[in-house]
């Protein structure tokens, strides 16, 4: 083997991978900023090390208590799931119906500016809040139970479906609208015959997706008291009933996988 010096002499053009960021100042600057951020973030977060150090034995106890998962109270589980399913279905239906007017309001090409801004604001606000936050507000307003869950997921669906539908309306083929207008058709007639037929296939696909998504979300809004399987899970956890809680978790995972499969299949058929 040649010494490194000699190799460099005979083959001076050793290839080096170009760095990801060309400017060395920016490259090292970013690293310093990152390090400073990490120090700041870890330093400012309140960690309770005593409590954390007890974690491993506690985890062992929880998992020990959770295995094997117990299906002894299967009727409670079924009631919870039926309620979750009902919440998801009703919220999807309401949300999908209500998302149409909001989507029309939030589409720049069919709505006047003030209406557009209002529609956008509704969609932005309903998308900013996690469904769980909306759920605790509705639980505070209308009490515990599935009603709060339905209202929450309706709002959640309006935000999601409304946003995508508004984008879809903004991209429609304008020729059909002009054709309708040239016959002297009014605003509503134009909407019904020139705009809606163009977005209908998308709306059906979005509804299926939203049903799947609402079924997942209905499991978590229950944790703050808005009905469904989440409430059952929270009760089981609160009573240290870990074997039942783990059984619920496993069934939730199974149901979500199944509903993902079904909605994927339906959407493939429709689209």
């Amino acid at each position, binding site marked *: 083997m040649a010494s490194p010096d000699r190799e460099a002499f005979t083959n001076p053009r050793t290839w080096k991978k170009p760095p990801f960021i060309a400017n060395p100042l920016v490259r090292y600057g970013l690293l310093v900023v990152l390090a400073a951020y990490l120090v700041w973030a870890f330093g400012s977060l309140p960690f309770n090390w005593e409590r954390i150090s007890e974690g491993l034995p506690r985890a062992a106890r929880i998992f020990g208590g959770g295995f094997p998962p117990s299906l002894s109270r299967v009727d409670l589980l079924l009631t919870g799931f039926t309620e979750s399913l*009902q919440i998801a279905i009703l919220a999807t239906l309401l949300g999908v119906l209500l998302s149409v007017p909001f989507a029309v309001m939030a589409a720049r090409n069919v709505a006047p500016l003030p209406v557009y801004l209002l529609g956008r604001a509704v969609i932005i606000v309903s998308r900013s*809040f996690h469904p769980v936050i909306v759920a605790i507000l*509705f639980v505070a307003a209308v009490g515990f139970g599935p*009603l709060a869950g339905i209202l929450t997921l309706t709002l959640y669906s309006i935000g999601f479906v409304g946003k995508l539908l508004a984008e879809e309306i903004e991209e429609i083929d304008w020729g059909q609208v002009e054709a309708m207008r040239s016959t002297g058709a009014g605003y509503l007639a134009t909407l019904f015959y020139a705009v809606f037929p163009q977005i209908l296939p998308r709306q059906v696909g979005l509804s299926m997706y939203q049903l799947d998504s609402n079924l997942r979300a209905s499991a978590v809004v229950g944790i*703050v008291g808005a009905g469904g399987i989440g409430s059952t899970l929270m009760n089981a956890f609160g009573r240290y009933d870990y074997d039942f809680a783990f059984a619920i978790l496993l069934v939730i995972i199974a149901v979500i996988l199944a509903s993902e499969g079904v909605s994927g299949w339906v959407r493939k058929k429709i689209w």
Partner: protein
Amino acid sequence: MVDDADLLADRVWRRHNPKEQLIRFGVMLVTLMVVVWAVSDIDIFWPWVWDAPNQISSLGARMWPPDPTRLGEIVDAMIETVHIATLATMLTIFIALPVSYIAAQNTTPNRACLWLGRFILVSSRSVNTIIWALLFVAIFGPGVLAGILAIMFRSVGFIGKLMGEAIEEIDRRPVEAMEATGASKAKVIAYAVVPQVMPAFFAIVILRWDINIRESTVLGLVGAGGIGVILQGSIDTFAWPTVATILIAIIALVLVGEAVTGLLRRKVL
């Protein structure tokens, strides 16, 4: 020719043929039946439903005007929320990358690893952040650690799945070229795989950071740190004007997060 035109004029235009109409009718009937079942069977006290608009507007009235006296505390909690989201996203990368490597068809060492990787990704994605948080609060006690772990456990599935798909879509030729030169496994990854998935990696991590900011606003509701702790406290004490301030702060945070991710996307990609 006139006869032909008459024949054409007599035909009534229909959008769907009879079979399509039957299918559409069937789907609508089934939907209607499901809805009737859901409405009639669900455990709802109907007078509350009719009263709901009043209750909601009364809650809105109690919230107005927002009370900014605890703004300092709220801003601190917001910073904590962002820290939880950012640290969790950064830490997730270290787990998600190896998992995505073994869960991608073309890079996985063997079938056992492939299924292990897929199992990790599916179980991570199927359990919601809040449920992970519930579990970690039970284990490590209330606090930010439970929140960071909850977000990490959820993000692994998301980042890992999308990264795995990005790895599966790489161009094989650079890998083969490297292998032909006798390069080691590590060098093949570093020089043939990594440069190809780099843009996807940044896009995915930025997207997940944006999602994690929203997710971390609710961790506190089960005791896992962040703004949710103050929110839950204010709701429990009926301090509705403070709740309104917190809600406005959350909207502001989400909008800022969206602006930052938009900027990063344009700069980096």
